[in-house]
Every structure is written in C-alpha cells, then in structure tokens.
C-alpha cells in the first residue's frame, strides 16, 4: 500500500531546507497551580514529520490547543515562516495554515462524504448542487487514498479509518501547510493504521510539515523524521529518529528504564474457573473453546473484527449466545444478559471508556462505587461512610488522589479515567474480570499501574481475560495467549511459547493466507 509513496520519499527532506516553517520559543502556559507548559522550544521544517511524545499530562495537548488557537499562551513566541505569529483565536490559526486532526472526529454522520467536505469551507457556493459537490469530493478523496469511496455515502457508514482519512481530506481543502495529528491511530487496527501512515508520508512528501502526537512508539519509527519529547511540561531537544530506538525514546519519556512495565507473573492455581466450550456468537465464524483458571490472565489478541472482543463481549453478556456452553465453577452460565452475568461475578471493562466505561459528569467516587453501591446500602440507603471508605481504598490502590474523589471524573486525564474504569470493578469482588483494550490512549505510568493491579487481582484468585490489539501488552501481561483472525481462534499457547515477533506475525501473517 505504501509502495507508491516510498518512490518519491525523502526528495525534499534530505535537501537544503530554507529554514523552519514553525518555530516555538520558550512557550509557557499555566492552569491554576499547574504549569502545563514550561518554556517549550522546538522547530518544525517543511516536508518533515515530527513526532511529539510524552506522558499524559506532559503538555502535548496544551501545545496542540495553543497551536490550533483554542488557548492563549502565557508567554513565549511562535514564528511561522520566520515571522512572529499570533494563533489565537482559531480563525487566525487556520489563516496561518495550521490544521489539526483531532482524536474525536468532527464530521457530521448524517451527511454525505461530499457534503462533509464543504462544511465550514470558505469559497464554496452555498448552493449545494449534488453533482458539483461530488465532482469536487472525488478530487479531494483521491488525495487521501479514498478514491474508491462514493461521495454520496453517508459518513456514518464509513469505517473508523475512513472517517479519519476523510477528516484529513477536509483539512487539505484549506491548503494547510502545518498539520497536527493528535493520536490519529488510537482507535484503529494495524492494517488501518498503515493507511493513515501512508497518507501522512505522502503529505510530508508534498512539502507539508506534520506534527504527529501519539502513544504508539512503533509508528514513530515508521513515519517520523525527528522526535521531540515532552516531560512534565518541558521539551527535550529534538532528535532525528535515526539516532533513536524504542528503548531510548521510552527512557527519554520516563527519565528512567521501563524494566518494570509489566508485573512479574505469579504461578496460577490449577483450579478451573471458567470453561468455555464451543462458544459461537455474533462476530465469530467458528466456535471458540478455552479455559480460564483461578489467578490466570488469558490474553486474546487480533485486529479489529478478529473476534477477540466478540468472545469477551459474549462472556460479559453483551451479545446473545448462538451456541456453546460456558461453565463458571460448576454452574452453567446463562449468557445474553449483562445483569445476569454481573450477578454471577463477571466484571466487564469496555474498550471505549467515554462511551460506556465512565459517567463523565459524575464524581469520581460515584464512578468507583457504581457497580457495588448496593453492597454499602443496607435498606436501600447509601452509607456515605462506607462508600467513601471503600472508594478511597480503591482510589489509593490506583494512585488516584483520594482527596479529590468528589470532583467529576472528567477532570482527570485519560490515564486516570481509565484507572477509574478498571478500578470500579475491584469493589464488586468479581470472580472473572473481562477487559477490552485496557490501556488504549493511556500513558505508560497509568498502564504500569493498571497491569500491576490486575496482577494483584489474580493473586486473590480472580481469573482475567483481556482482549487487546496491542500485541506487546498481551505478551507482557498474559499467562496464556490466544490469537484471533476473522472470527476464529487461530492458536492458543502459553506465554513462554510466544515471542513478540511470532505473535505479531501470527496476528498479521494470516492476512496473506486468507
């Protein structure tokens, strides 16, 4: 897919660069007591992709907000093309040629692709003649590898990757020269990531400058020419990607080694906890059989739509069971009802915390207590004391500031929100814990925290099933690993029998075979 782009790659990057397109000098921004940005410096050259890395809360989002004109910096200077520039408010930022692709898509689902491509664009007649719109749309779509798409398609029918690419096409209309990608691949499977990365390469080949914000390190080495790391609101000197490797980048981000990212494994009991026999549900093309022991972590991995998450969802009672039998202990488990599964002690942490993992407008304490509030409410009246006690206990285990439990959960960073989404189940004393993409869009510190707590949970005899498209996570965390492809389980082995390479190949390799 990326072959075409590689042919004319780096014709401009290696050449003599006339000078930075964007210069940021000593940029600072303070929110209340928190210094979000502290004299940040970097330069962005024409035709380059610069990766911007850092933990959650390191200042990346603040920088993106400043560059896109949503927030005014307290001090510091921004130059575009060597001239001082003011980017606030966002109309000025746009006029200066800055465009941002956000994590959340701004396309209107109920409108067609062509209509979305004229939304908010100047210089387009407000008379939306379908034929004119569609002709225009085809031209734009081809610039982002979506030429096969019918411009009349409703946006809600597109895949996530296609929406992402459409988003990019919308920015290209404005002829933006500085493109900022804010974790564009967070919700994509490997193959779709490939498409987005190919388009990004192509855009930089055309001479545009790209700032690429991400949590996924492998992508950095695939697209980025240089890397800037933010740590605690400060910027480290920008380095060429060729001088770095994954370990070096992680060390820069953390300021320490990552040896302890994954907790040590503990020998699990032989006691069978969950016996899945011939499970067949929506999203699975072949019956799946696997077993989970007390204290064991079973990792299911595959790309989006592989069936790994379908297994988890049907065990959680979210999908109707078509056939098969699931034994929890000695009891036959009735599937197809979330409430019934919960009653039997099956906790379920979903993939998309904003959608169905947290109550973002409610206090952290209410979020933490939501699955077990009944247990602190004799006679139906909630005991404040018990609720505070138990949620504080969970909060402190997950290093969430317990003094702030009455603040709404939306005031937390993504990583801490995820800790809440996982942690709330601890109080429900589950027998089986199911998780989907447990650390998507979560910084490394919070990830380590979550992994450790999951291990702790195992120590108390709980069995855990994790479905994730992040193979390194599955490899580092699981005792037993099953791979999925297109609705069937392709292999299941102990973690010792897997290497990262083998696992990635197993998940990807099937593509050629199919």
């Amino acid at each position, binding site marked *: 897919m990326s072959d075409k782009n590689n042919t004319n790659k780096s014709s401009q990057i290696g050449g003599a660069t006339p000078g930075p397109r964007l210069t940021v000098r000593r940029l600072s921004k303070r929110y209340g007591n928190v210094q979000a940005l502290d004299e940040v410096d970097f330069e962005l050259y024409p035709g380059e992709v610069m990766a911007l890395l850092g933990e959650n809360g390191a200042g990346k989002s603040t920088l993106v907000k400043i560059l896109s004109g949503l927030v005014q910096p307290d001090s510091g200077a921004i130059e575009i093309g060597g001239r001082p520039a003011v980017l606030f408010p966002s109309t000025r930022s746009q006029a200066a040629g800055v465009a941002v692709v956000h994590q959340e898509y701004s396309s209107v689902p109920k409108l067609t692709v062509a209509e979305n491509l004229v939304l908010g664009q100047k210089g387009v007649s407000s008379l939306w003649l379908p034929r004119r719109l569609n002709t225009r749309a085809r031209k734009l779509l081809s610039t982002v590898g979506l030429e096969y798409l019918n411009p009349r398609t409703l946006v809600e029918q597109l895949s996530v990757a296609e929406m992402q690419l459409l988003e990019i096409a919308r920015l290209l209309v404005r002829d933006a020269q500085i493109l900022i990608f804010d974790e564009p691949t967070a919700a994509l499977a490997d193959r779709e990531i490939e498409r987005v990365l190919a388009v990004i390469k192509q855009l930089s080949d055309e001479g545009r400058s790209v700032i690429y914000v991400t949590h996924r390190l492998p992508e950095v080495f695939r697209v980025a020419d240089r890397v800037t790391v933010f740590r605690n609101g400060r910027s480290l000197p920008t380095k060429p990607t060729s001088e770095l490797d994954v370990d070096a980048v992680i060390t820069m981000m953390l300021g320490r080694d990552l040896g302890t990212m994954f907790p040590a494994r503990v020998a699990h009991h032989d006691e069978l906890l969950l016996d899945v026999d011939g499970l067949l549900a929506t999203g699975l093309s072949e019956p799946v059989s696997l077993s989970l022991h007390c204290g064991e972590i079973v990792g299911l991995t595959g790309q989006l739509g592989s069936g790994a998450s379908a297994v988890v969802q049907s065990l959680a009672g979210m999908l109707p069971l078509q056939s098969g039998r699931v034994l929890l202990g000695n009891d036959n488990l009735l599937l197809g009802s979330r409430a019934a599964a919960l009653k039997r002690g099956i906790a379920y942490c979903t993939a998309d915390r904003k959608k169905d993992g947290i109550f973002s407008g409610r206090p952290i304490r209410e979020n933490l207590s939501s699955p077990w509030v009944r247990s602190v409410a004799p006679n139906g009246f*909630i005991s404040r004391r018990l609720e505070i006690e138990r949620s504080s206990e969970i909060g402190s285990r997950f290093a969430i500031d317990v003094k702030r439990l009455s603040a709404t959960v939306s005031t937390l960073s993504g990583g801490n929100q995820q800790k809440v989404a996982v942690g709330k189940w601890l109080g429900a004393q589950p027998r089986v814990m199911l998780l989907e993409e447990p650390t998507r869009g979560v910084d490394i*510190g919070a990830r380590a925290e979550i992994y*450790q707590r999951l291990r702790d949970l195992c120590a108390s005899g709980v069995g855990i099933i994790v479905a994730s498209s992040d193979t390194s996570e599955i490899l580092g965390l699981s005792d037993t690993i099953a791979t999925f492809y297109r609705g069937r389980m392709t292999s299941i082995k102990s973690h010792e029998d897997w290497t990262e390479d083998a696992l990635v190949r197993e998940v990807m390799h099937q593509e050629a075979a199919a």
Partner: protein
Amino acid sequence: MSQSSEEGKKFSSVFREKIPVVGSLEVLMPYIIIGLAAVAIIVSVTITPSFLTADNIRAILRNASIVGIVAVAMTPVTLSGNFVSLAISQSAMLAMVSYVALLGAGWHQAPAILIVIVGLIIVGVIQGFIVAAGLNPIITTLAAGAIIFGVVSEMTGGWIVLAGENFVAWGSSNVVGIPIQVLIFLVFTVLVTLLMSRTVIGRETMLVGANRATAQIGGISFTRVTVIAFVIFSVGLAIAGVLNGAAFGQATAVSFPALTIDVIAALLVGGTAIQGGQGSPLRSAGGALLISVISNMMVLNDFSSGGRLAVQGGVVVVVVVLLDQLRRRQVMRL
C-alpha cells in the same frame, strides 16, 4: 511479587497526577439560584412596598407550591435522561377532576385520595414502560396528554365537575399560619431530595441519566429506573391535583392550563440538566420559588398576564444560557 508491587508503588508516586483545582459547578449551582432569588426579592422590596407583607409572602409560597411539587416530582424523570413530560397539565387535571368527581359521588376523602394516587401511578407506569421500551419520551408524553385530555373531555362533556355537599375546603386551610400546600410542598421536596441523594435508586437514576450505556454494563436497569421515576412523578401530579381540587371543590378538563410550561420552567431555572445526570429536586423547588417571586412582583406592579408570561420566558432563557455558559467555562478550564 513483593518486589514488583514495590515497583508499582514507585510508578504511582512518579505518575500521581496534579489535578487543577476547579470550583465544581455542582457545588456552586444552589448558590446561584439562591443568589438570583435574593436579587429578585431585593428588587421587589425596593420597588414594591407591599411585597414583604405576611399575606403576600403566603401568596408567593402558595403559588410556588403546586408548580413546585410537580417540578420536584418530575426531576427524577429528567435526571434519568428521559427529558420532560409534555402531559403535565393534562395529568394534574386528570387527578383534580377524578378527585372532585369521587367526592361528588359520595366517596370519603381518604379512599378518594388513594384512588387518585393509584390511578395516576397506573397512567404513569404505562408511560414509563413505553419510554423504557425505547419510544421517545417527548412523543410518548405528548400522546398521553392528548389521550388523557380527550377522554376526560368526553366524560365530563365539557361541563364543570362539582364536589357537591361532601366538600370540605381543606385545600385552602392553614396550619400554624402556613398554607397546607406549602407544608406538603416542603415535606415532598425533602422526601424526594433524600430519595435522589441518599438511596440506591436515586443514585441509579443519576447514573443512568449521566451515561445509559455505562449504567447498563454496571448492571443498572434503565427500565426499573425509568418506571420508578414515572411513579414518583405521578405521585406529585396526584398531590397537585388533589390539593387544587380540595381548594376549589370543582374542576374542568381545562384546569391547570399553564402547568406544563411552568413546571418545565421551574426545573430548568433550577439548573437540572435537560439531558439528565445533573441536578436535584431541591433545585427545582428553588426554581419554582424564584419564578413565583418574579411573577408576584409583576402582579403587584400591574403587569398584564401576557406580559408576565413573556417575562417568565425571558427569565428561563437568561438563566439557562447563564448556567450553560458556566458549564462550558468549566469544561474549557480543564
């Protein structure tokens, strides 16, 4: 293993996040309402000397009571994410007409009141189940209102229903100088507020309104929450109908003409979020009081009824926009 948990702790101290201190809107909201009411009262007192008389204050509270009781009762419906009912006037009218008609047919007070409450609950539960099954609450209640109005009009033939010789006007009595509606309003507000803030069902109502999908995965039943919210709402409607019936001794199919708009206004001015998950019955009570104060001030200053309605609408718009701006600002600061 102990070593690895040591490592975990190290991580946690490194990554413990500094969270910006933000004044929570939830905490501020009641003060905003109280502040607005205070401003309204101060303005009233300065421009209208007759405002601070015992009679007038009693009138304000009595006017606020019926709207307040229903607004408090409807708050759980809104909190649970089921917007508002558009059958408020018709349902309260149904309660009032049936209460008066039962008295007229010779029933005693207690069984008549009981039958009205049970009847209203049945009507409410039916709507609750329909809404829980997935039909839009606006459409459901709009249709329910039309049906109730149609049936009652048919049965009364457009005539005034009278309570007859059985009637005791306890609805206009005072207890220790306080109108009975005001006392019931007070008790009802306290009860529903406690129910929402202290009990499991109240918490579940809030959570379902805040995020229905998350609630479902946490084992909270949307149907249960919705039906119970409609039961509470129906009890409030029944009380309002009975109180007015007991005050006037007669009713028609067009009683409570402006109740729907008044109740929704009180709820919104109180700052309960229309999309659910944020707010409280206490605030709706405050909203009803605020509107009553403003409307009383206008009566004392000889505003026409049209003028009063226009100002009331204006107040709703101003307060809702103000609260919305505050919410936005809060989000921006994060």
